[in-house]
């Protein structure tokens, strides 16, 4: 399995566990987290699952399994620096969203939260579009 695939799959597993932990917090009947931040936390958790878990798992397996031109076996897939940069952007965007969004619903309009949400959106968007392009080239018929 290529190194980038291992990285995606391991990170996806971490996001799954983190998302389930946040899901428990959202479901707690007590006063923590505060009701006003519960919506932001649940939105961030949904995206931890949809993007951090499922989509990253798909990226990892697809980079490994989708057909490649030529006969290079999977273990010789070149380790591209841009792949790792995009992986880092995607995960940084997700972590930033989890850190910022619950607070955004409580303190909207403050600069830290505004720039945090914008940076999270831009990072995730750029990373996903990069991998859409990577996988597009791999969808070649035999």
């Amino acid at each position, binding site marked *: 399995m290529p190194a980038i695939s291992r990285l995606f799959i391991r990170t996806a597993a971490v996001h799954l566990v983190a998302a389930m932990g946040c899901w428990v917090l959202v479901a707690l009947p007590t006063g923590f987290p505060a009701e006003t931040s519960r919506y932001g936390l649940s939105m961030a958790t949904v995206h931890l699952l*949809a993007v951090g878990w499922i989509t990253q798992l798909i990226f990892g397996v697809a980079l490994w399994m989708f057909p490649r031109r030529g006969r290079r076996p999977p273990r010789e897939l070149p380790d591209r620096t841009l792949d790792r940069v995009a992986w880092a952007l995607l995960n940084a965007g997700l972590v930033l*969203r989890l850190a910022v969004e619950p607070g955004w619903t409580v303190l909207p309009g403050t600069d830290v*939260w505004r720039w945090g*949400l*914008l940076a999270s959106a831009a990072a*995730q968007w750029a990373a996903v579009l990069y991998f*859409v392009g990577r996988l597009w080239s791999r*969808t070649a018929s035999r």
Partner: protein
Amino acid sequence: MPRVSLWLVRAALVHLAVGVTAGALLLAGKATGWTPDTGQLALAHREIVVVGWLVQLAVGVGFWILPPIRGDAVREGPAWRVAGLLNAGVLLYVAGCLWGGAAGGQAGPLLAAGRILELLALTAFGVPLATRAFR
């Protein structure tokens, strides 16, 4: 990879690109206060990402990988119909979401039609899969 799987996966990637763009706009909108019909855009975003990306990718890879319904010259006809129905359904539903915001919520028929097409597509995919997989 059979041609029908090729095009299903590519369509799924297009849906992912569009869906993540809509999602980024929604998240940026929270930060900047730009909120045009975010309720409708959020519904469209969810449909594109869940059905257009995740479900369609699974269907496309399923036609490629799963032995009972592996695409070949005989079975690709039904597979193409699944692809057409699924994408038409998503497009109709998304059009209904966006039209509903602009038309004051009068897009019920579009939403229903989109969901019906999606149901037909996934029934056409799932029933053969279930019956053949359990032989």
